[in-house]
């Protein structure tokens, strides 16, 4: 969609696991105001949400697809929550440690592909209603790559393959890791696709603490700091910036789908009212 001044709007959706459901609140707002972005880019969970929106052009459809998907993955989600919170059985914990040091991923190789193909099937980039691109990290070089052709499920898998839990995804001769490793919110890529102005939506959660349970906890904290520094650098080029930092939901609580959407709507309405008005005034026709 072009603004009054003829500017094309891009939408860049950031990584953040289950917190990425918050993007749906923003998509709802755009639908309500009948604002259609000209380009969408996504990283990790942002790529999942962005691809679903680019294919259907409707936030309601995205919500329905995601809800349907979540309700069929309850067992796997429970396992994930227990493992991350250290509440799984001793046998499971040992098995996770074994897989961590022996296999290339904790989950089986096609785990993420099998899950995401339930949503995207054999849809290709050429089938999208809005031009879309997913970012992923080249495993060999550590560079960020924009994937915007071929099967959507391949690109979204590559963009969402969290290092450790999920297997790196091979596309052609390149193996990819999660896009969020080096690009938290793919604003630059939306500009490269042709957008004049970009809405950057960040769903990460900057933590602050000084006491740590163990070295792993400290490493995790430093990674969240790195993510935060990357995201502020990514968002420098965004004309409109939306953060969901106030939402205190952990990235792995995929079971809290409804609460996340409810919370994110409140954040949008209470904190970003002015930002949303600016978008409406420029792009709502």
């Amino acid at each position, binding site marked *: 969609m072009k603004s009054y001044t003829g500017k094309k709007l891009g939408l860049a959706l950031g990584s953040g696991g289950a917190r990425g459901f918050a993007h749906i609140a923003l998509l709802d707002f755009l639908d309500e105001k009948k604002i259609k972005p000209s380009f969408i880019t996504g990283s990790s969970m942002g790529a999942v949400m962005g691809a679903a929106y680019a294919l259907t052009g409707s936030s309601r459809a995205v919500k329905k697809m995601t809800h349907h998907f979540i309700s069929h993955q309850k067992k796997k989600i429970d396992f994930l929550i227990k493992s991350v919170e250290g509440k799984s059985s001793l046998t499971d914990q040992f098995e996770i440690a074994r897989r961590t040091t022996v296999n290339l991923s904790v989950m089986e190789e096609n785990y993420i592909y099998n899950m995401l193909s339930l949503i995207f099937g054999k849809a290709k980039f050429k089938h999208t209603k809005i031009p879309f691109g997913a970012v992923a990290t080249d495993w060999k070089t*550590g*560079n960020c790559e924009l994937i915007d052709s071929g099967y959507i499920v391949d690109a979204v898998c590559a963009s969402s393959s969290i290092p450790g*839990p999920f297997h790196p995804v091979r596309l052609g001769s390149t193996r990819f890791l999660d896009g969020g490793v080096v690009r938290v919110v793919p604003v630059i890529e939306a500009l490269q696709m042709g957008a004049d102005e970009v809405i950057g939506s960040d769903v990460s959660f900057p933590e602050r603490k000084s006491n740590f349970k163990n070295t792993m906890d400290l490493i995790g904290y430093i990674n969240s700091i790195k993510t935060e520094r990357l995201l502020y650098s990514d968002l420098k080029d965004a004309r409109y910036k939306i953060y969901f930092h106030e939402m205190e939901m952990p990235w792995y609580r995929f079971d809290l789908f409804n609460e996340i959407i409810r919370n994110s709507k409140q954040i949008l309405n209470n904190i970003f009212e002015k930002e949303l008005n600016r978008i409406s005034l420029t792009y709502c026709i």
Partner: protein
Amino acid sequence: MRSLGAIAALEELYGLPEYFVTTGTGTMISAYCSYLGTNAAQVFFEQNFNFLKRNLAMDMLGFLTAPSNARIRNYNLLNDFYTLFKVSTNKKNLGISEAQRLLYFIEDKFSFITSRKPIVKSYLSSFELENAQERLFQTTSSKLVKTSLAVVPFLPPVEINEKKYISTQSVQGVPSRTVADGCHHVLLDTVGKRGYFNSMTSFQVMISANEMMMLELKRRAMKNFDFVVDLREHFSESEGNFLSLYREGYNRTKKTVKKINLNG
């Protein structure tokens, strides 16, 4: 040690610098150079090279190169399993290497900092954990040197005035340039080299992803510098003795700065 050679080359070409800003092991070098001069630093690091080599062997990616020998590979798996166990269980000391000897070494050998005046001002960059902010300190005590050396997960955070600090190297590889404007800022780059992530297990993939994040932040921070002398190379790839590393740094810097004109 390459950066010490590089400092000597730059000093020969352009005289003493206005100031040093360092993080990681470079802090020891800059502290010595700034208080006692480059020649004294050369003597000191040559004498203590073997100790430092043993106690600073903490290259996060060093073990990621997949060895072809199956027995070594199995040893690496055991090593990873042990490391994973250690990082998940050690609650008191958050570092995984035997840091005590290195920390005593710093206290002992860098005690001159408190009793002398620097020839060149020296700053070190540390990262304060609670506020997630990079802090620049003038190098005025050996304790401050330790904060800049505390590379996670090898060495534990260092506490000063109830605040915990780690090395900025753990977050973004290099310090940000924030001390003074109007100077040419040269980065002696010794941190990480892209393109050799050769992971075999999910544990190693996680570590190399952490490294990729740090390198991406470093890439962005490097834009703040006027020019960069690339001193990166895997430690094991070099001959591994003081003089060869020193000469490598010296020669590479002379070659690089030939292309630029700092005065113009």
